[in-house]
């Protein structure tokens, strides 16, 4: 049997995922811009 009895307790992670994706995108873009600035 799969251990899914308490899977409902971790549903919050699905709500956190879009936030994590947006923050990761921002950090990646900021670092790329920073690198470009250093190269210039």
């Amino acid at each position, binding site marked *: 049997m799969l251990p899914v009895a308490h899977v409902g307790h971790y*549903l*919050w992670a*699905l*709500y*956190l*995922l*879009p*936030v994590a*994706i*947006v*923050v990761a*995108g*921002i950090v990646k*873009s*900021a670092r790329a*811009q920073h690198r470009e600035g250093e190269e210039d």
Partner: protein
Amino acid sequence: MTSLPFAHALASRQDLPIPAWLFAWAASIVLIASFFALSAAWRKPQFEDEHRRSLGERLSAVLLSLPTQALCGALGVFLLGVAIYSGLRGTEAPDRNFALTFLFVTCWLGFPFFSAVLGDVFRPFNPWRAVGRVAGGGFRAIAGQRAAHLDYPEWLGRWPAAIGLLAFVWIEVVYGRTSIVSVDIDPHAVAIAALVYSAYTLAMMIVFGVEEWCEKGETFSVYFGMFGRLGIFGERDGRLYRRRPFSAATKWATVPGSAAVVIASIAATSFDGAQDGAFKAGIEDVFEWLSERGISLLEALRLTDTIFMLLTFAGVALVFLLGVRGMRTVPGAPSFKKLRRGFSHTLIPIALAYLVAHYFSFFVFQEQAQFTYLLSDPLGTAHTNLFGTVNYTVDYRVLSANTIWYVQVAALVIGHVIGLMLAHDRALVYWPDYKKATASQYWMLAVMVAFTCFGLYLLSVANG
């Protein structure tokens, strides 16, 4: 509010076509698409000027005339008096006493909803302002001069209103909770609290002046007035005017403590929604830990709820301040303090969205009680039937569970898109180069996505 034990118990189960969490993903995509649309098409500030247009001179004169103001003020004082009397002399049953529904539903939710559309509708009905103005007029007539007041300390700003806001919600959702599973707020305690608040407000009006205290310190004037800044009507120099929606909000957060008021509003709604849902397990753990250390059950419960309420405030503030801190990394950014104050108003539509999402169904259900049996029998003692409506009941079928959910999702998405729009507009003021303005707003996009997903998570747990 949701924790008053009269409306939510009868909500039916949802039957959604997709899981609730997918709505959070869809809402996030809508926000991201809106962000890029704003970046591409919105390159000059649109909300810094209110674009005022005068209303008809006669209409303005009638609405702002002394008799109209006296009538509205008298109505406010009368209704507050009825609420206090009902609380003191009426039944202890919270669902049958006029005081609780009138104060916690009709006023607390009704004024923000109507103000957000029409402008500050509380101001003419504010009972304390009405009493203060009459007393000030009386003093002038007797003494032949205006009453002298102390200068309001600049640093104090709107902090008294922010603290008052948290205290008001604390009375309802923390003090009113008598056990881990039930809320039984006492109308008598609410009436006493209203009397104490009235005495405090009138004393502050004597010290600092009626209008000064209403502008900065009086909780309800500041709170309802904040939502009124989103509305389309305003008053200036004794004339009513129409303005661009949301534009007056851009000049709201000019005094210290304004950010605290709007953050307190979001936090209070979040806590109320999470108390019996997302935070329930955590609250129970801390409650048990405290009660095992010899603290009485009621005190442990109130202490636990107070801790979680303050943590919610700190969490909401932290998300906003992280967004502001992120904006500071963009070249040409103003100071942290200026950014914090300059972007506080972008949270007002979010505070409204949270209110609508959490309380819209509650408002619809409870107002049926307000305008039928509570109006006919304010004391709830079954001795009066003033309007012949005492036997009416609340019809919970007017809204299905699915309708409530779709309204909640729509409110959160629309509120956050408006928040993004206001933030983008303000960024164009601080960074005239629209590319830098857009770069700064990546951070506010993260803030908006975070608040949207958090709001939907709280609702999904509460509805589940």
